[in-house]
Structure formats: C-alpha cells, structure tokens
C-alpha cells in the first residue's frame, strides 16, 4: 500500500478524478493479454492528461522510489503492462487526442492514447493510411504499439511501427521532457532517438506525443489463396513469389492443424487435407501493375503444385480472409489457455520452422497449431492448454524453450513483434550473449538508474 500522503500528492498533481485506488480498480489493471502470467495489482492508477503532469508524477515517484508502469490498452502479449513490483500504473486511456493531420507533409501528430484505428479513420478522408496493423488495431494505442514496435499483417511490404515514427516527445526517468525528430523526411540530428524509444516497452522513457508518417492508400488490390499438399511446396511458393520480385502486402500461412481447427470452428469450406494454405494479397496504385503482380503470384502457386482460389469481389475477398481471421479464435476455442508465440526466422527457413514446430508439439504431446506472416518469417506457433493442469503447463514451458532454441539455430529471433517483457526476458542472453545483455543494462541504467520505469521487464532489476 502506498502512503496516504503520496496518494494525496498524486491526487493534487493529477486531480482526484484522474486517480483510482479501489481494490476493484486495482484488479482491473492487474493484467494484460499475456497468458500464463499471474495477476498483480498496482497500488494506484493515474490518468495523466498532459506531458507536464507526467513529469510531475515521475518526479514524485522518483523521490519516493515508486515504480511506474506506462499502459495503453493493455493488449500486449509479453506481460509488458503488468505492474510486477506494485506502484503506479500510468494509463494513457484519457490522453487520446489526434492533435494534427498534415496531409501536405504526410504526417500526423497524436497523443499516446489514440487508438490505431481512430488514427486511420481520421486520415482516411485525405486518402491516406497509417499502415502498421497488429491484430488489435481496434483497441491498441499508438503509445503502446510504438513501445512494442508492433508489426502486423502488412509488415512485409509496408514495414512495422518503427518505420512510421518520425518524432516523439518523451518524459525521462529524471523528470526531463525531450522532443526529437519531426515532420522532415530526413533527419540525422543527434542519435536516432526514435529508434531507441520505439520498442523500449516503457523501460526507458514515457512517450507523451508521437509524430507519425502516413502514406497514400493503395487504390487496387487482388486477393488469392494457394492450397498446398506439402509444407515444402508452400515454402517454395513463398520463396518463388519473392524471387519473382513481387512483394505482396499480405503473405500469410496456416498449417494443417490450424486449417482443420478453423474449418471445424467456422465451416467455411477449407480443404482439410491440405498441409498448408497461403493467403496472398497484392496491392498498389496502378491497376495494371497489381494485375501483373497477381498473375505472377498465380503462376508461382501453380508451379509449386498449389490449387488456386481468387477473389473477384469484396465479398469473395472477405470469404478468403475469413480463414485467416478465424485462425486465432478457432485455435483459442480448443482450450482455456492460449500461449501465442512469435518466434521469427529468415524467410528461407519458414518450411523448416513449420516442420520443427509441429515436431515439438508432438514431442511434448501438446495441441499446437502454427499460422503467421510467412512473408516476413514471423510465425505464431500457438499452444492450447489447460491452465489448471500444472503438469501440462510444465510441458508447455519446455516446448516454448525448444521453439526459441530452434528459431535461434535457424538464424532467427525470439520475438518478431510481441516484445520481450517478462515473458521472454530469460531467453535474451541466448540471442544477444553476455555483451548484448551488458549493453542493454548500460542503456537502461544510464537512463533509469533506479529502475522506476517498468521494472522487471526486458532488463532484470539489479539485486543489491
């Protein structure tokens, strides 16, 4: 429990209506979307309404050595928003204003609590889009997705969050506010701070404003599905599409287990005997170009023994997308706990990784389906388990360990988009080595020597 005086000080700083302390409210802020992680209630939740207010809160917290956890919508999958060591949850749900849409410079300026879909709705009348599209576009915040460097379905062609953050305002652990970057396309002034804070998961600074890049919305698109009898054929098709110099906006894969589960769940007529399925969408500004690219993709699918389905209308497109949209819901319906990983490998190792995941599922006798972003090597091996069965949970942990090991052995990475948080901290050394861990620690400690910003995430708290 926080001292009463500190609560009163926070109420003075933020206003009584922007502070929550009741037990029930604390439970409401005790978790995020991460499975298999115990709840932890904070001491207090504060809703800042300005950067200055954030500074005051940070100064107060630092004086009293109280931890602060920035929080957007709490949808991340690595435990980043869970207040592990109690303290203050700083919720940005009320700082949700779009401050500017500058169509001439193709930029927008937003507060951290803006929902991704709200930004897209605001720029749509200008014929523009903000491309990063995690599965949670309708709920996740700009601050949270910047802090996670979220990806999404369009990552292959359009990149991820870091490619769209041009400038920021950040409150540091010492209470100072810094602004860097801005509306210019080119900017080499000072260190590349944007890329330091994007993906820092609230451990280095608190984002209070973002300047984002926008792009013109593609005018044409074609959607196709390729159905394959072997994983090798599917993997070769992915390689073939890139070799044909087509970069699809979407290039998604689903394994046999996922296909069958989706079919049982949604009855949409999927080929349950197929080993893999690719959902491919090409888009662009010119009808001819999109047509040519679609033709090339279809040829590659055929050359690799795939059956083709194409969509001529929006309705048919929705039909093809149904399979992918239902992947996670269908798998999740199999049991009460969904362990959704995002181990990522170089594109050329996709087939190997799919085969390895399936084998690991078998080895540990687990229900495991894999789907994901084949185009960028970002797979989601998904394990469905019963959280009340501790013996099974133990096997899940072993399987996850092994999935990471395999991904690293293929030259891949622990996380393509879901972040490190608490969930994957212990694996960091496997990928970075001791010198990498040391670098992480020296950055963390120089910016936040007392570990008040999101302690226990990414960098272990130093035990004194």
């Amino acid at each position: 429990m926080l001292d009463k005086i500190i609560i009163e000080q926070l109420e003075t700083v933020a206003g009584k209506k922007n502070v929550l302390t009741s037990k029930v409210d604390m439970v409401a802020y005790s978790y995020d979307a991460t499975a298999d992680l115990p709840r932890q209630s904070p001491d207090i939740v504060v809703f800042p309404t300005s950067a200055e207010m954030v500074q005051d809160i940070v100064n107060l917290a630092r004086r009293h050595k109280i931890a602060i956890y920035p929080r957007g919508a709490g949808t991340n999958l690595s435990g980043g928003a869970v207040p592990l060591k109690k303290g203050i949850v700083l919720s940005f749900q009320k700082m949700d204003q779009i401050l500017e849409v500058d169509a001439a410079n193709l930029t927008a300026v937003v507060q951290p609590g803006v929902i991704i879909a709200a930004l897209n709705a605001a720029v749509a009348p200008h014929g523009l889009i903000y491309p990063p599209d995690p599965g949670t576009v309708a709920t996740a915040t700009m601050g949270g997705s910047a802090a996670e460097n979220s990806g999404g379905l369009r990552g292959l062609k359009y990149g991820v969050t870091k490619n769209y953050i041009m400038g920021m305002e950040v409150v540091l652990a010492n209470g100072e506010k810094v602004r860097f970057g801005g509306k210019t396309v080119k900017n080499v002034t000072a260190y590349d701070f944007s890329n330091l804070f994007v993906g820092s998961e609230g451990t280095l600074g608190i984002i209070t404003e973002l300047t984002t890049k926008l792009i013109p919305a593609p005018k044409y698109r074609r959607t196709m599905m390729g159905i394959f009898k072997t994983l090798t054929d599917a993997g070769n098709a992915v390689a073939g599409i890139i070799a044909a110099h087509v970069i699809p906006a979407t290039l998604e894969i689903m394994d046999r287990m996922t296909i069958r589960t989706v079919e049982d769940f949604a009855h949409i007529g999927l080929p349950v005997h197929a080993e893999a399925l690719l959902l491919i969408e090409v888009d662009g500004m010119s009808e001819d170009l999109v047509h040519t690219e679609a033709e090339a993709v279809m040829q590659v699918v055929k050359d690799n023994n795939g059956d083709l389905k194409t969509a001529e209308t929006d309705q048919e497109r929705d039909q093809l997308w149904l399979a992918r949209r239902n992947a996670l819901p269908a798998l999740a319906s199999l049991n009460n706990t969904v362990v959704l990983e995002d181990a990522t490998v170089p594109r050329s190792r996709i087939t190997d990784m799919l085969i390895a995941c399936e084998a690991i599922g078998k080895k540990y006798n687990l229900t495991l389906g894999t789907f994901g972003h084949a185009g960028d090597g970002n797979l989601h091996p998904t394990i469905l388990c019963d959280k009340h069965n501790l013996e099974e949970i133990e096997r899940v942990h072993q399987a996850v360990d092994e999935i990471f090991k395999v991904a690293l052995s293929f030259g891949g990475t622990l996380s393509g988009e879901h972040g490190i948080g608490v969930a994957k901290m212990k694996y960091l050394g496997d990928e970075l080595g001791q010198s990498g861990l040391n670098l992480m620690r020296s950055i963390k400690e120089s910016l936040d020597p007392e570990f008040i910003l999101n302690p226990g995430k990414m960098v272990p708290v130093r035990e004194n």
Partner: protein
Amino acid sequence: MTSTEKTKVGPVRKTYHDDLAIVREELDKCMKCGNCMSVCPVYGAEKLETSVTRSKIAVAEAVLDGELELDDPEVYDMLFNCLVCKSCMTGCPTKVDFGRIIVALRAALVRKNGLPWLKKMIFSTMKHPKLFDAGLRIGAAMQSLAFKSDKGGKAISPRSPFALVGGGIGFDAERQMPALNITPLRERVPEVVNADNAWLKVAFFTGDSLNYFYPDAGMDLIEVLTANNIEIHIPKAQNCCGVPVLVHGDIETVRTLARNNIDTFDKTGCEYLITGCGSCGGAWQHDYTDILAADPVYAPRAEYWAKRTYDISTFLTRVITLRPPKGRVERVVTYHDSCHLKKSMKVFAEPREILKSIPGITFKEMSAPDACCGSGGSYVLSHYETSSIIGRKKIDDINRTKADTVSVGCPACMMQLLDNVHRGGAEQDVVHYISLLAESYRKEKDGQGSA
C-alpha cells in the same frame, strides 16, 4: 431405472444461476485480449479498464479465488455498471458468453444479500428530477408485476425486487398508471383477434413495454398481422418476460414468470409465438431454456417455445411472405439495431428488408447502427451520466443521417431514444418499424397508393 427416469426423479440439477462456481468454465474462456474494449458502450463512455467486460471477468475470478468478496460495495457497484447489452459477445474471439456470466454474478449477489441495491438505486432516482419521467415509466413496469401478484394471487417470489418498491417511494400502481395516461394494449383488444380468411393463427407475446408504454405500436403489430389474414391470440394471463428482473439477478422470480408464461401460451394451441421486443423474444429464445434447464417439467416446454419464437420481422419475411406494402410513406428513415434484437435474437436484416420495401421511404444507414443506445432498462436510472454519454453518441450518429424518423425494434430503446432526440437530436420521430408498415397498409386502404 432408465436414464430418463433418473433425470426425472434425481436431485434437482443446478444451473449457473444457482451456483457461481459453474461459470468458472465460462470465465476461463476469456483470454483478456481486450477486443471487448472496442465495442463495450460503457467502456467507450468512461474509458476505464474497470468498465470493460474483461475486467468484470477478472473481478469474478478474484471473487471465486477468494481475493474479493462478492458483496463488497465496490464489487457490486462494478457489476451493476453494465447494460447487459451483450455487445461484447459479438467480437469476442473465444465466444465468451458474458450474458451468462453477468447474470450468474448478480444472481449470486442476490442470493447472498437480497436486493438492497435496488432500493438504493430507486431512491437515488427519486432525488434526480430529470430522471423522474423515465423513473415513472420503469417504475410502473416493475410495479405492474407486484400489482399483478397482488390481484391475481400469482405466486411471485416474495423476494421479488418489486416487493421492495413499496408505495411510500412513489411507485404504486394507482399513481403511476394514470400518470402514463394510456390504456394498456391487452385491455384494448380481445384475447383472440380474428382476421378475414384467416389461414394461420399465431400467439402474440406483448411484453410489458408494448402493453403499458407503447400500446399503439402493439396495435400496429396486430393490424399488420390481420392485414396478412392471420388470427392472433393475445392471452390476458401473460405477464412480464422477466428480463428486467433477470438482469438484476432475481432468478426465482424470473422462473415463476417464465413458468406462468409458458403455461399461458401452451393453452393457446398456437405454434408460432410472435414478439415485438428484442428482450422479450430473447427471453423466449434463450433465457427460459437456460433458467429452466434443470426443471424436468418446464425445460422441454421452454425448448418447444424457444424454437417457435419469432420477432415479427422474421415471421413476416422468413416464415410467411408478407403482403407487399403499397401505400406511400414519405419519410427518411434510419434504423437502430437494438442490442437484444441483434445480439441475442440475431435479427437485423429483416427489419431493414421490410423498411426498404415500403414505397416512399428513403432508407439511411447510420455509421454504427448496432451501437447501444445506453438504455439498458434500469441502467439509465442507476448510471445516468454514462448512459447520457452513450445516448449522446447515438444521437450524433442519427443526426448525421439527416433522417426524420428513427425506427427501432425494441420499446426500451424507443424510450431512451425519445428522451435523447428531445435533448440532443432534431426531434426526429421515434417509431417501432412495424408502425411504418402499418402506416403503409393504412395509406393503401385510404387510397394513397404508390402509383
């Protein structure tokens, strides 16, 4: 003993309404993904994690784990900050049945503590002059149950919330009914309404809201059916569907109401049960089978009617082919999807088909037609501020369509929208969609055809 005999004489099985532990499995389904944040109207208005579905689930888990007490005032305040609109069930990836969870929680609370919160809520309403009119109406609806239980001697549980609503605080029938100043629907019509050349007979469950608040809409529904040569049975012994009581967790009262309604409709000998309200229809289609699941006598009857209950729009367009409307109705109309009609009964295409088939009507869709209007029965009384914010969003959306008429399929929404078009809207007409069809039929009769 055969297995069927066993179920007949064995110990009475419980449903999740009787034992909170039974909802554990439903709670387990929630993966805390947060998708419900994008649809929950209460969250949309308050922007607090505490207002959203997944947090109510987390709190329920904490209660079952013994971390929180169910009757902690903080807990029940949170549990009642919900419209039971079921919007959260539409985008939920794991299909968590939150409707069940919230009712189970409230039922557990009622079992533990009775209904003191209801009295508190109604008292607070009385202090709020703006709420007075809405209070009158809802109070009258609640009163009608207590009223009926006095007169007819029907066994309504003495634990009924309405037993608490004594005359002293202004909710007595004598004072309310005249204040509403309308003759209830079932007093206007005989129990059997004949039609020329009747080829089919159906039973009409009026519900309390069409009976007491919008009897004119009820009359329109009857008129439409007779115009389609259908005989209508409107048994006088029917009572409230029970949804207002169900959502407050008083399960035994709902069971009594449900059994009485089932007995009453069994006697009609009809094979179709028609409703003009999403909550009533949802009760017959889903809630009665749920709450009576462990009742060996009534469970099969509830199943029987669940399969034979139709919203009037579904009946007109999917069961029969309605007589095409010919009279011109010159209106620009938008349609609000009532939560229980769309999310519980899955009715949304049919009313639109009917409206679009009426000559003269220009149909304008709003941007979020299925966003909750914020009524939630008594929610508007207990959470006036949040309800107003939700209502305001709805009205802004309606205003943008430039429609002069807002059509709806649920009387509770009509009440809320009427209040809101008055305060923030352009005084649009708020009507049951069936009234527009009736209007067209009438115009045709008067010779104002489309030709």
